[in-house]
């Protein structure tokens, strides 16, 4: 069993995170002063007093930015520091560098910012009314939706609200910038996207990318929250570093982090579906309205993924998906595990669930009826064929292993005997497309160095945020080069080693970086094979040379072997280069946004969960009694790590579906900015009986070692909890009436839904 490569350091406290770095007594603390209003004109402020405070080294406003005042990653609509208007609470206005945090806080008190308050837009409904679209409306359509809806024997329609979600990575956003020679700057940033962080630092400082080096050894969790929004913190710390000529570290306070940074997008979705007596959906129309917050950030890509997942695991012949993202006066919403997928899937899962109740059938029958099939009914609404479909096999296996049907009867029995406590059960699937839907992002680089003593240093462009990427890369390198793991080190991710990388996101970290590492190793092996042939005195072909278990040999004469560590110095003496870059781009993927068709995904990941819950219908309190998960990771590169991703992703999804409710007051102040008010799952909230398995014996073709991406898909298995709760509520009305239900299903939502039914 291969352990997490950092586990020993993590468990002894030696693993260094950005905030643990204390590089010199010269180091200053950076601090950001942000807007207290959701929408206001800045009338003025005076920085003199703050600047004069002893221990303060710099106080900066937008006027002090030497380069461009811009941090927008896609659209250039996000200022680094506010100018004359603020558009959300938490928007940065002034930066302070001081000898310590207390001095910085003292300095902040000396800055009196005068505002003229303007009317904010804080609800999607209001944004829709005012038509604050952030970009043109998107559409994906197949078949004739209106006609088929009109013809349908049965129809349902409704509105679903899905809530925002705070990332709550344990390590808040942090960055340490150190000045170097000339204009150079080195940033240790907790970023998922070192190359973009590098580019943005260069832009705000008005210098070139080759003068900025970004290094990331590990992050204390990210989940999408550090994909673009780590850039802000890095830019602020770089500006202060540049202004003072000293190292500057920013590590946000928890409440500041929650107030400043964006969340998972809230969605308000409207749907209509037509279906036959059997529950087969014939036509489905859905409009997804996303709350983008105050800037574009990644909203359009997130909306796009929501639209591409509006089908989830179901073949629907006539389908229309409209996507709209609206500007509001909340912090710009951003990537979060699933990246819109969960919001799109929530709607179709609601539809399936409602159809079952409408027809008086068990929802598993409706799901099975609508699943994508193998031979026909296998083209998605955007035209991509669902290949290597694992839905049927997973469905059959999990139905059996979870004893779904038997438990359904037991639950019915329990419910008939208990008046206020009700049980519910639900099975939900996920089909999740793997690749960045912006096709050009699907590229990765690597740099593999072999040193004369036979030790190996692997560099790649992905970041380690706990998901086990470095551990997987280590195994991939070891297996591909045939060298034991002790001889290999996976280096901290660094923009000087690997340039122009994509974010470690879209679950694609090991897929693309693993392939790039393999590519570099293939190049090295090709060079080394010639040397090996000579040493072995063989006339054989290079292709026959095998690298395995620290030995090198001709596969036709396995008796004669040389040690890898003997081959390397020999190759060096023969003037063979022992270093190679590697590159990978995902083949054959494209997407035409205008037409809404394409092959945006390299492949799909599949999984299913069955969850049983107990709900106290008087208080809304609920408990997850048991969850069974069967998830497809192809030939897993590391079972332990993949199971950890499935469990962790699922539980994070449970949080979004149940307890994690974000509230703002009428002025846009975040009310849930502490762990006491914002409830991420605790150890008490996970299923009492939790059985997680990986699907075995189904390799994934054309990927690194036949594996599959795993980071995001399991998040969406949490819908089994959400719908099991709904199932339990609907018992109150004998499964006849439809509970009024939104996401998250907090105790309050549950109690109200129950009252409505009664």
């Amino acid at each position, binding site marked *: 069993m291969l352990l997490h490569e950092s586990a020993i350091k993590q*468990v*002894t406290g030696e693993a*260094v*995170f950005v905030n643990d770095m204390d590089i010199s007594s010269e180091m200053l603390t950076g601090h950001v002063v942000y807007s207290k209003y959701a929408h206001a004109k800045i009338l003025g402020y005076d920085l003199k007093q703050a600047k004069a405070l002893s221990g303060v080294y710099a106080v900066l406003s937008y006027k002090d930015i030497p380069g461009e005042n811009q941090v927008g990653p896609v659209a250039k609509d996000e200022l680094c520091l506010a100018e004359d208007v603020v558009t959300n609470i938490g928007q940065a206005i002034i930066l302070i560098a001081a000898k310590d945090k207390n001095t910085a806080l003292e300095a902040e008190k000396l800055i009196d910012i005068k505002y003229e308050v303007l009317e904010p837009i804080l609800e999607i409904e209001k944004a829709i009314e005012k038509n604050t679209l952030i970009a043109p409306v998107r559409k994906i359509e197949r078949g004739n939706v209106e006609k088929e809806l009109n013809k349908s024997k049965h129809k349902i329609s409704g509105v679903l609200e899905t809530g925002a979600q705070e990332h709550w990575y*344990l*390590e808040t956003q942090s960055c340490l910038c150190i000045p170097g020679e000339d204009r150079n700057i080195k940033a240790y940033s907790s970023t998922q996207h070192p190359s973009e962080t590098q580019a943005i630092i260069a832009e705000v400082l008005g210098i070139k990318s080759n003068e900025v080096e970004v290094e990331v050894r590990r*992050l*204390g969790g990210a*989940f999408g929250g550090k994909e673009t929004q780590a850039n802000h913190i890095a830019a602020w710390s770089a500006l202060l570093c540049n202004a003072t000529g000293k190292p500057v570290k920013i590590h946000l306070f928890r409440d500041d982090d929650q107030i400043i940074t964006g969340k998972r997008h809230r969605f308000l979705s409207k749907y209509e579906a037509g279906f036959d007596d059997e529950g087969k959906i014939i036509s489905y129309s859905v409009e997804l309205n996303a709350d983008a917050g105050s800037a574009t950030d990644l909203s359009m890509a997130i909306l796009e993924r929501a639209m591409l997942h509006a089908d989830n695991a179901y073949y629907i012949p006539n389908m229309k998906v409209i996507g709209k993202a609206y500007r509001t006066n909340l912090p710009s919403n951003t990537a979060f595990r699933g990246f819109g997928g969960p919001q799109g899937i929530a709607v179709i899962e609601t539809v399936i669930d409602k159809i079952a109740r409408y027809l008086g059938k068990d929802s598993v029958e409706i799901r099975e009826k609508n699943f994508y099939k193998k031979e026909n009914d296998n083209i998605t609404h955007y035209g991509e064929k669902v290949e290597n479909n694992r839905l049927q096999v997973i469905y059959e296996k999990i139905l059996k292993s979870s004893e779904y049907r038997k438990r359904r009867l037991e639950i019915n029995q329990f419910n008939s005997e208990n008046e206020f406590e009700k049980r519910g059960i639900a099975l939900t699937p996920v089909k999740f497309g793997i690749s960045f839907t912006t096709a050009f992002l699907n590229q990765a680089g690597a740099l593999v160095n072999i040193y004369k003593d036979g030790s190996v240093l692997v560099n790649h462009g992905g970041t380690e945020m706990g998901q086990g990427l470095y551990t997987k890369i280590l195994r991939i390198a070891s297996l591909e080069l045939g060298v034991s793991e002790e001889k290999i080190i996976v280096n901290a991710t660094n923009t000087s080693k690997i340039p122009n990388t994509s974010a470690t996101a879209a679950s694609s970290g090991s897929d693309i970086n693993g392939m790039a590492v393999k590519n570099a190793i293939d190049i090295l092996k090709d060079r080394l094979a010639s040397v090996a042939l000579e040493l072995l005195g063989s006339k054989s072909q290079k292709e026959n040379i095998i690298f395995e278990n620290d030995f090198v040999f001709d596969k036709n004469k396995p008796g004669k072997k040389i040690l890898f560590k003997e081959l390397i110095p020999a190759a060096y003496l023969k003037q063979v280069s022992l270093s190679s870059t590697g590159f990978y781009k995902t083949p054959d993927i494209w997407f035409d946004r205008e037409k809404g068709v394409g092959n945006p995904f390299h492949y799909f990941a599949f999984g299913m969960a069955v969850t049983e819950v107990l709900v106290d219908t008087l208080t809304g309190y609920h408990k997850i009694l048991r969850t069974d998960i069967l998830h497809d990771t192809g030939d897993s590169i590391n079972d332990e790590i993949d199971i950890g991703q499935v469990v962790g992703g699922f539980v994070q999804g449970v949080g979004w579906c149940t307890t994690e409710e974000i509230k703002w007051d009428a002025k846009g102040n975040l009310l849930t900015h502490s762990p006491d008010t914002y409830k991420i799952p605790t150890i008490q909230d996970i299923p009492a009986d939790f059985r997680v398995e990986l699907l075995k014996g189904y390799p994934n073709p054309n990927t690194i070692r036949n594996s599959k991406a795993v980071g995001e898909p399991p998040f969406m298995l949490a819908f089994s909890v959400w719908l099991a709760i709904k199932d339990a509520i609907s018992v109150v009305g004998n499964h006849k009436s439809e509970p009024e239900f939104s996401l998250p299903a907090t105790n309050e939502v549950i109690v109200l839904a129950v009252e409505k039914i009664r």
Partner: protein
Amino acid sequence: MKLIINKKEYNVPDSYGEKRLTDYIRDELDLTGAKNACQMNACGACAVLLNNEVIKICHVLVKDAEGKEILTIEGMENPDGTLHQLQQAFVDAGAIQCGFCTPGMVLTAHAFLMKNPKPTREQIRKALQGNLCRCTGYQQIIDAVEMASEYYRKN
């Protein structure tokens, strides 16, 4: 003022008395295993043991720890430098992802297992309910504590 940390005595200038214990051990002693994750007494990432009791030290002042035996994650290893069996169990069970919660988690579990070396899974959950982890989903953390409990029973 004297602090006893990981069995070592430190002479602390009185001027540090009003400083938060987390800041003092992190900034002055370079013991960075205890993390600043919420600084609101709510997540357990800063948990250490004071006289074998778990304390979240983002809310403890240096002077309040005077004379008490403090155990931080840096003092958890066996005297011969090998991992303590509980640490090893965290590694083996896959209970660590990003690792930011890990030091607090391990120390909280340690205090608990010293008192209750034969816990049920329910009791483990109860003991760790004040420690937040955003990565693992906790299942493997419970496994790790369960795995390590045998060692505490024997010792």
